[in-house]
């Protein structure tokens, strides 16, 4: 290939642009129920697969293992343990955060799975894998039916 050698970077052009779209994602059939319970009753719900014996959090319409439709809803515990965690010092755009944020995968008690959320009321250096934590909810009037209705998970004894 007769590549033309271009030594001066100003001679190569870049075309600037952006891709703009606005999205509205439906929660879906299972998601709608989950977020409704979160908003109205501060409850974490899961769906149970009778065949496989799993209770899924976050709940889904069907079991990915056996493909059965799941219509049994159960309340899950608000407690769990830190399965793994990380401490973020920069935000999504790469800017330094004022305060570091602790992100954890919290395994909820007695169900299959859990959720990724923030840890609060704890110093990053005190976080341990296996640490027991509990969900702290916003006041009802501030809840909108989103994952942020849970403010964070805090350590419990």
């Amino acid at each position, binding site marked *: 290939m007769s590549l033309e050698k271009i030594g001066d970077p100003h001679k190569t052009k870049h*075309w600037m*642009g952006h*891709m*703009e*779209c*606005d*999205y*509205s*994602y*439906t*929660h*879906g*059939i*299972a*998601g*709608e129920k989950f977020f409704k319970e979160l908003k109205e009753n501060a409850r974490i719900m899961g769906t149970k697969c009778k065949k496989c014996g799993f209770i899924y959090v976050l709940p*889904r*319409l*069907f079991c*990915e*293992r*056996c*493909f059965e*439709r799941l219509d049994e809803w159960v309340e899950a515990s608000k407690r769990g343990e830190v399965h793994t965690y990380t401490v973020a010092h920069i935000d999504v755009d790469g800017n330094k955060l004022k305060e570091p944020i602790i992100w954890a995968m919290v395994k909820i008690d007695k169900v299959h799975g859990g959720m990724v959320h923030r840890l609060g009321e704890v110093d990053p250096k005190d976080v341990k894998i296996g640490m027991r934590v509990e969900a702290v909810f916003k006041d009802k009037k501030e809840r909108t039916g989103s994952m942020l209705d849970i403010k964070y998970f805090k350590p419990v004894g």
Partner: protein
Amino acid sequence: MFVKKRVAVVGAGLTLFRRNLKETGRELAYEATKMALDSAGLNLKDIECVTLGTAPDAFDGIHMKGENLLDGAGAWRKPYSRVFVGGGTGVFVANSGWWHVASGLFDTCLVVAEEKMSSCFPHPQYAFTTIFDPIVDRPLGMNLVWIFALEMHRYMHVHGIKKEQIALVSVKNKRNALDHPCAQLPAKITVEDVLNSEVMVWPVQRLDISPTSDGAAALVLASEDVAKKITDDPVWIDGVGWCIDSTYWTNRDLYYPEYVECAARMAYKMAGIKNPPKEIDVAEPYDPFDYKELHHMEGLLLCGKGEAPKLTEEGVTQRDGDLPINPSGGLLGVGNPIAAAGLMKICEIFWQLRGEAGKRQVPGDPRTGLAQAWGDLMQYGSVIVMRS
């Protein structure tokens, strides 16, 4: 050519096609896949691999859409891949399912297609802008309907075709869709309705175009020995073809889809078809616009160049004609969730060849059927030939 195992379609599933569906993409994929499995009397553990087709991530707004949908497609901890060739995906994903089984590597395969275009605001059209070249096309404010209008206009000009002739396709397909339980826009319209509808991009008017839609479809494929145990009436995939043309679409004459002919020849050769108009009993060519049905009929060698409008005028392409085209109602009548639309056509051929199409059934016991999809920047053709 050497094919290790003959491949059959043994089950099919389809969701409603609507402008907006509440289900997430994953849930839509599940509904179609579960229906396909149930129709074949199979469980997920009977499935050895999954192939999924879905079009630009920009519609659903979730990148790595294939990964997001896999649970719904039954692919948890299975060999899995996602294919994407724009609008051609719906038939190409079935082609990819074919080679999974024909190679001898797997005995069963799930083929799934899903699209959820409703997530994109202000309109899914806007997500399409991201497919155009950012340097020479986008700055001119390019819109997808513009480029199809350019193709339609060129086709009309080269063959001297009038809008009235093309409008007959929209009338036929929307009427056929009245008998399809999943159809989004079935209607009894006339040629005058089409000619009086809003001009979007001349010569394209509102009733010339299929809608944007949410929906999913699925097939179960099986190798010969396994298929015969599952059902008495497997539908064999006897020919597959696919082809792509240059992305420099301004460097091609748009009046004829060379790439569709290329894909069709590949499929016909494999299926041993020498005289397509005589040997194909029913066909579902891709019809996102009414002129495309005509354009593709010619590319599929079902008639000579410029002859498709005449066949339509003479009623040859009606359900009770000599060459029924789009008995389902096509994209114009049933809907256009990009990838799922093509697979919907294969579901239709499956049901037609088994005599299970109910009110849409083409008479005369059709034995050989064809489905075709078209995609990307007017450049991709995928074809499948099926026999019962």
